[in-house]
């Protein structure tokens, strides 16, 4: 395919309307031709503008809750918030994002940047593995730190299941880890509750293929008393107060 032929096809390409052989040939040309790549990117942005020509529709609160809840329950991406991201002080509910603060992405970002030129599939795989290792290390460091209290959750109902909550009042982090939990019945999710002066929902989750789950939440400071934690089965995507039966439970000893 000549440069002129390729250039002519960029409109159809940006609209996703190219077929078979032409699409393949153009993709090959784009890997070699920087001017065509730039033009393709410009036209793709113009095409994306078409999305703004139709009236926007605000999703209902139920749909929003379902969608944000699905990400919360998605254990494949469960991660521990990095130390610099911890919430400090009570009553803060949302952080502001600034591009500069994100520039300090650390070693993982540098590794990713270094790999940009290499094979795409390999890079994606390395990327995921690196992120997984970083998350795992962060989780271990958190659980091993001296200020963290851990509470084991058990039940006669599920004798094989093992689960614990680790929390730190100072950094206001809470992590829940479970193994060998049966998958929730269709249409239901597991929900974690922190029970102190009141009952507070602390996140919903499902299980991975091996019955594992990791959940992280913010620990809302309460007067120095020993908290209880419980897991119940609830209708998806979760409920504000427990309605289902408790399947696992455990409490901290002493001053929590």
């Amino acid at each position, binding site marked *: 395919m000549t440069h002129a032929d390729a250039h*002519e*096809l*960029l*409109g*159809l390409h*940006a*609209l*996703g*309307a*190219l*077929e078979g052989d032409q699409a393949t040939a153009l993709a090959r040309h784009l890997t070699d031709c920087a001017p065509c790549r730039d033009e393709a*990117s*410009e*036209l793709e*942005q*113009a*095409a*994306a*503008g*078409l*999305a*703004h*020509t*139709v*009236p*926007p*529709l*605000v*999703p*209902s609160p139920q*749909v*929003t809750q379902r*969608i*944000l809840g*699905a*990400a*919360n329950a*998605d254990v*494949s*991406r*469960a*991660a*521990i*918030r*990095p130390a610099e991201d911890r919430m400090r002080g009570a009553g803060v509910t*949302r*952080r502001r*994002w*600034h*591009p500069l603060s*994100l520039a300090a*992405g650390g070693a993982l970002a540098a590794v*990713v940047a270094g*790999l*940009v030129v290499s094979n795409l599939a390999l*890079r*994606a795989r390395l*990327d*995921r593995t690196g*992120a997984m290792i970083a998350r795992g290390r962060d989780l271990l460091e958190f659980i091993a730190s001296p200020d963290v209290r851990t509470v084991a959750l058990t039940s006669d109902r599920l004798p094989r299941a093992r689960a614990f909550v680790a929390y730190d009042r100072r950094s206001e982090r809470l992590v829940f880890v479970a193994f060998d939990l049966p998958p929730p019945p269709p249409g239901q999710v597991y929900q974690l509750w922190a029970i102190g002066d009141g009952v507070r929902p602390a996140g919903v989750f499902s299980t991975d293929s091996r019955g594992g789950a990791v959940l992280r939440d913010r620990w809302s400071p309460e007067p120095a008393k020993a908290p209880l934690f419980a897991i119940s089965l609830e209708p998806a995507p979760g409920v504000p107060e427990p309605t289902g039966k408790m399947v696992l439970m455990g409490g901290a000893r002493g001053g929590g």
Partner: protein
Amino acid sequence: MRIWRQAADLEDGALLAAVARGDRDAYAAFYHRHSATVLGLLFRILRSRADAEDVLQEVFLQVWRQADQFSATRGVPFVWLTTLARSRAFDRLEAIASRQRTVARAASAFVEVAPDTVDLATAAEDEGRLRRALVRVPDAQREVLLLAYFEGLSQSAIARRLQLPLGTVKSNARLGLVKLRQYIRGTRERAGR
């Protein structure tokens, strides 16, 4: 104060980088920023609110799971997001067609649904601006853009529908987008962006 589109893209990039690290606040922020536009787009393609909402969930779950892969490509987040949405919507349309429900749907094709009364200022501003740009694109070119973008038709399907040679469809697609880009820039500059 108005925000430059480029600045918005940078901010989207920062949000997605945070999503890639598993940040749920950033994910919620990215969702609240774009969900109304994406749901509007999905509804325009699918003509069914229930289907559009299902696909919206698929799209944002994909954003949550693949933000790390996207961040490395350094593309434009909104282009990525709308490409995901259209691709999923056309998959859904095919599934619906295979269930032979197209006839029933055609009957309800022009039902207008009023947007919910939430703060739509930014989305509405973009909508007005882009609509003004689109109406200035010549009819023959605009027709090609709309059939490809919202109906998911390929070059040859558009040629058959409009009874035009393939070459004309090809040049109209490119010229239409070039004009649209030029008019978008024009309205942005006049608006002081």
